[in-house]
C-alpha cells in the first residue's frame, strides 16, 4: 500500500466517521425539537422526515394564502355524500342538535361541546384554498372556531405535542402537531361561503388545516384527543393516512 492511498484511506474513513456522527447528532437534535414525523420508519422515512423537518423550520408561523371574495369557486367540490352510519342519519334528521364534540386526553377540563356552544365562541372566517393530493383544488370561505380557542377552553397540559381528531366514521382519523393545532387558521369549520357547512363538504363540523392538503381536513369531526405521543393511536403512525399508504405530513 502506497503512502498516498493510505492517506486517502484514512481521510475517507475520518470523513465517513464524521458523517455518521453528524447524522446521529442531527437525528437527536431533530427529535428534541419535534422535527421527526410519526411515520419516519420504512424506506420512505428519509423523504418524509426531510419534508416535515424543513417545513417546520420554514413555516412554523406562516399563514396560508387567503383570497379575495371574487376568487371563491362557484362549486365547492364535494366528493363524499355522507357517512353511511345509522347514527349519522339520526343526527342529521335532528338537524345535528345532538351533535357533540368530545375533547379529552391531556386537558385540564375534558368537555363535550354542542354545535351551538362552538358557535358561541368568537369565530373566524377565512377564504382559503383546499388542494387535494390528486391535483385539483377550489377556493371557499370557511367559517368556524379556531382550534386554539377550544384548546384554551379545556386547558391543555404543557407536555401536549399532538391533537388527534376523529370523524364519526371511525375509519377516518388524523393528527396534527401543536404548531398546526395552535395555528390561527386551523379551525373547526361549521360554515362555508356565508351559510352552513353542507354534509357533502364535511358538515356539520370539519377540521380545516389550510397549510396542508385536503386529506388532513377530516370531515364530520366528533372527537379531539390531546396527547404527547401518537404510539397508542392505531398503528402508531399518527393517522389513518399512513396506514393506507399516505404521508402523515401533507404540507406538500
Amino acid at each position, binding site marked *: 500500500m502506497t503512502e498516498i492511498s493510505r492517506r486517502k484511506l484514512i481521510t475517507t474513513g475520518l470523513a465517513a466517521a464524521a458523517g455518521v456522527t453528524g447524522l446521529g447528532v442531527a437525528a437527536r437534535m431533530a427529535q428534541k425539537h419535534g422535527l421527526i414525523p410519526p411515520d419516519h420508519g420504512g424506506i*420512505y422515512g428519509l423523504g418524509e422526515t426531510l419534508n416535515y423537518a424543513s417545513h417546520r423550520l420554514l413555516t412554523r408561523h406562516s399563514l396560508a394564502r387567503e383570497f379575495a371574495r371574487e376568487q371563491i*369557486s362557484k362549486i365547492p367540490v364535494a366528493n363524499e355524500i355522507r357517512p353511511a352510519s345509522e347514527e349519522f342519519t339520526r343526527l342529521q334528521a335532528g338537524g345535528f342538535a345532538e351533535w357533540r364534540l368530545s375533547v379529552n386526553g391531556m386537558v385540564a377540563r375534558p368537555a363535550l361541546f354542542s354545535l351551538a356552544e362552538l358557535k358561541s365562541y368568537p369565530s373566524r372566517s377565512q377564504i382559503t384554498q383546499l388542494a387535494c393530493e390528486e*391535483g385539483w383544488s*377550489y377556493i371557499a370561505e370557511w367559517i368556524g372556531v379556531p382550534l386554539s380557542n377550544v384548546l384554551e377552553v379545556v386547558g391543555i397540559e404543557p407536555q401536549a405535542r399532538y391533537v388527534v381528531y376523529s370523524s364519526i366514521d371511525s375509519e377516518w382519523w388524523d393528527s396534527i402537531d401543536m404548531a398546526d393545532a395552535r395555528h390561527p387558521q386551523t379551525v373547526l369549520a361549521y360554515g362555508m361561503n356565508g351559510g352552513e357547512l353542507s354534509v357533502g363538504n364535511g358538515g356539520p363540523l370539519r377540521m380545516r388545516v389550510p397549510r396542508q392538503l385536503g386529506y388532513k381536513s377530516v370531515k364530520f369531526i366528533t372527537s379531539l384527543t390531546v396527547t404527547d405521543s401518537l404510539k397508542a393511536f392505531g398503528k402508531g403512525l399518527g393517522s389513518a393516512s399512513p396506514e393506507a399508504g399516505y404521508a402523515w405530513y401533507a*404540507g406538500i
Partner: protein
Amino acid sequence: MGDSACVPSSASTFPAVTVTSRHSALVRVTHWITALCFLALLVSGVEIVISHPRFYWGETGNIHTPTLFKLPIPASRNLVPTGYGYVLPDQNGWSRYLHFQSAWVVVLTGLLYAIYGLFTGHFRNNLLPVQADLSWRAIVKHLRFERPSESDAWSYNTLQRLTYLFVVFVLFPLVIWTGLAMSPAFVSAVPVAVTLLGGQQSARTIHFFVSLALLLFLLIHVVMVFRAGFRSRMRAMIFGTPMERI
C-alpha cells in the same frame, strides 16, 4: 485531482496510459444518482397524474371547472369523468412518498454538482460553448445527428453544451420551483413562489410540461449515447475513460 475532463486532442496520439479521465468521479457519481432519481420521479409522477389527468390554468381547477386540456387516459379515481368505464388502482400513496424522497436526493445531489461545477471550472471549461463553435453551421451539423468522430469522445460539441446548460440551469430549477409552488405549506412562507407563476394550477401545468421536456431530453440523450458508441460512452460515464487502459 482537479478537473481533467478537457483533454487536448493530441491525447489520442499518446498511449492511453497518460490519459486520466473523461468524466471526473464526482460527475460520474452525481450523473447516475440523478439518472436513478429521475426514473423514480418519472414513474411516481405518472402515477400521480393518473389520479387527475386534467390540467388547468390559474389558481384553482377541478371537475366543475373548464380544463386547459385533458389527457386521454383513464383515471385512478372515480370522481374524474374520463369517458372510460373503469377506474385504475390508486397508487398515489407510495408514489407521493417516492416522488418527494427522490426529489430530496436529486436536489441535494444537484446542489453538490452545482457547487463543484462552479468551483472547479467544470461549467466554464466543459459546458460553456467555445466561441469558435458558436455558429449556425456548427449547430446545424450537430442537429443532423451525425455520428461523432473518435476525438469527440473527449469533449462535448456545441449543441450538447447548450443542451446540458439548458437542462442544468433552466429545466431543473424550473421543475423544482413549480413543484414547490404546489405545496400549500411552502407557499404560506414564500407566496411569490406561486403568485409569480399565476396560481397553483398554473404551477402544476408548467410542472407537467417541464417534466415532458426533461423526458424528451432523456430520450434523445440515450439515443445519442447509442449512436456515438454505447460501450465507450457507458465506460466513460462509469469508469471515467472511454477506452480500456493499456
